[in-house]
């Protein structure tokens, strides 16, 4: 099934739920991620400490962001990088197009970057020239299939080996195989040709260190290393929130990120790039850094929304979300899916454009429990819901035209939940007392537009035992 890029979450979700093939692939993928993360985390007794440290480092970086950004830029430029500031997606795309033009065009290779997905870079660059070649295996698969990614670290998680085999046979005119190793070898062969002739490489950035002007890129495949070392020009695209103050801060994040994402102790590769290489060394002649705002600066305003910018894009909240696990990434109709997608999409695109997303959650709290930087995703979802309801009542709800008192009540309901969610103690108290109530509310009121879905399918309602309790019990029994 070709995913539609509709923004109607309710109908997307219904369609996804009817797709057994998709649900099978999702179940396999997310359970595997969940298992591997659990094993990797259980090796680290100080896990909770690390999360708190990470949260504080991010809060420090974000509440001093102007200062740290300036420091980063100064150091990166001193080391020979060229910095470009982009207020929005369009400005970023046109900056990048200019850099490619100035480099004389030619083949452009790209490694995985959600930020370039966010700004719609490939489509913008494809006007008049062939689009950049995606070189991450998952990204290449979905580029061939002309689909958006469905997961922030495993973009083709919704595809089975049969899907990929059929796709390669059709698009590359080769014999069909369903052997995963063989499919991977085919990708290597085709993509090596692109690397051999590439003149420009575009990458994302995981962290940018203010103190030294260093860019960090984590990966497993080696395509980001190829992208940043073979072509003559490297363009790195980063949101303003990627800044960390000091090089030593990396220790915490390097312990948290691979374990939370893929369940690895460390990714295969980690590149630290500080400016451009000297004349006699290998590497590009020019390193460009595009720093993107695109709505992020507004999220800094209050404590609640500021958390959205702490995200290190590990994907754990997707893998543990009972809604994502059932419907996958495409149903969200946004670049960023899952709990973090439901939180940042309305803030980036405007609440009006993604008004259903803050409701695409059962508020079970699993996302918050696994988030390595302790983002309180339920609190954020409730805040966004409250803002929406304040604006115009429940979206698409049969009650949207109900008299004001009803709406006010609902608004208060969300505020109450926001209060309940605002501290772990309070949360536990409310969840203990209110578990039954949540389930009822969730099914009958909040997800009014999705009633058909929730009734017909596995209920993504809060489990009888909360994830938090089950988790603690499991961990307790391990000790």
């Amino acid at each position, binding site marked *: 099934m070709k995913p539609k890029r509709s923004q109607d979450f309710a109908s997307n979700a219904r369609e996804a739920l009817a797709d057994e093939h998709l649900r099978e*692939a999702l179940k*396999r*993928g997310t359970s595997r*991620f969940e298992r591997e993360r659990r094993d990797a985390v259980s090796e680290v007794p*100080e896990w909770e400490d690390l999360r708190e*440290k990470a949260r*504080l*480092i991010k*809060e*420090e970086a974000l509440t*001093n*962001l*102007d200062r740290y950004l300036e420091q980063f830029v100064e150091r990166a430029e001193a*080391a020979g990088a060229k910095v470009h*500031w982009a*207020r929005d997606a369009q*400005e970023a795309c046109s*900056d990048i197009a200019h850099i490619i033009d100035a480099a004389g065009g030619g083949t452009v290779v790209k490694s995985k970057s959600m930020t370039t997905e966010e700004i719609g870079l490939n489509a913008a660059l494809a006007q008049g020239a062939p689009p950049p070649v995606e070189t991450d295996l998952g990204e290449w*698969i979905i580029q061939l299939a002309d689909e958006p990614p469905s997961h922030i670290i*495993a*973009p083709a998680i919704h*595809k*089975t*080996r049969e899907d990929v085999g059929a796709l390669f046979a059709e698009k590359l005119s080769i014999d069909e195989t369903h052997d*995963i190793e063989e*499919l*991977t070898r085919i990708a290597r062969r085709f993509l*090596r040709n692109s690397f*051999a002739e590439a003149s420009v490489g575009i990458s994302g950035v995981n962290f940018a260190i203010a103190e030294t002007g*260093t860019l960090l890129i984590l990966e497993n*495949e080696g*395509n980001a*290393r*190829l992208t940043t*070392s*073979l072509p003559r020009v490297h363009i790195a695209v980063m949101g*303003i929130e990627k800044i960390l103050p000091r090089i*030593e801060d*990396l*220790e915490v994040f390097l312990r948290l990120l691979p374990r939370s994402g893929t369940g690895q*102790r*460390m*990714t*295969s*590769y*980690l*590149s*630290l*790039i*500080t*400016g451009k*290489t*000297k004349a006699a*060394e*290998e590497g590009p002649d020019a390193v460009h850094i595009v720093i993107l705002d695109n709505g992020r*600066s*507004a*999220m*800094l*305003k209050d404590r609640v929304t500021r958390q959205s910018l702490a995200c290190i894009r590990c994907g754990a909240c997707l893998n543990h979300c009972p809604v994502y696990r059932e419907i996958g990434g495409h149903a969200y109709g946004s670049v960023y899916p899952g709990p973090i997608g439901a939180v940042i999409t309305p803030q980036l695109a405007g609440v009006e454009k993604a008004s259903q997303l803050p409701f695409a959650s059962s508020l079970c709290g699993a996302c918050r429990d696994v988030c390595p930087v302790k983002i309180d995703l339920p609190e954020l979802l409730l805040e966004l819901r409250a803002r929406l309801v304040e604006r115009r009542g429940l979206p698409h709800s049969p009650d949207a035209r109900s008299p004001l008192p009803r709406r006010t009540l609902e608004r208060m309901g969300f505020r109450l939940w926001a209060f309940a969610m605002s501290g772990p103690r309070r949360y536990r108290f409310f969840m203990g007392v209110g578990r039954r109530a949540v389930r009822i509310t969730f099914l009958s009121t909040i997800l009014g537009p999705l009633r058909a879905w929730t009734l017909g399918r596995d209920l993504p309602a809060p489990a009888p035992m909360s994830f938090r309790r089950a988790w603690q019990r499991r961990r307790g029994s391990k000790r």
Partner: protein
Amino acid sequence: MSTASARDEILGRIRESLAHTEPLQRAPGPGLSASHPPRATLVEEFRRALIAADGQVHRVKSFADAAPVLAQRMAAARARSVLSSDTPEIRALLAAAGCAGVVTPQAGREELLAAELGLTQVQFAIAETGTLVLASPCEPHRLASLLPRVHVAVLHEQDIVSGLGEALERLASDLLPVATFITGPSRTGDIELTLVVGVHGPQELHVILVADGPAMPPC
């Protein structure tokens, strides 16, 4: 093209958003607890972590013993050409192993891409994760450790540090311009989350672990 005005506007928006926020000041307190186990423990921890990450370890007593291991790896990979990071130590090793077709990082792209084995040193390694750290000021390692199907790296036991914190500290003084952390071979899980090694970079990673100190002064 973005201009100074884009910079000023973005920084202005950030300052405006943060106008009523007390900036969090974090005292650069003690880092994460670092342990300093004896060398033998470190070597063993490194060896285990590297194997867990699908790397292979070949322990030898002295630098002179490394040459036969390299020769073996070249034969196993049927390597006609070796992409070398071209440091004095690597040159000596290649000569001792009797390797003819040596390619250096300055070669043309076609020649670089054709090499079957890459040979580099390792500036230091991290026991906790089995990670090799290579830094460009010491050797041009970027392509030799990436392009060929087999990467052979020479590491001296005394260059193993315990954890990430220590590694970052060691690196902080000289980051320019590129440092690469390598933990096992290139891998992907992008089809059904099934692990396949060698997708873009090396399929095999061999570390020749030399017990004695370096034959030549380190960088």
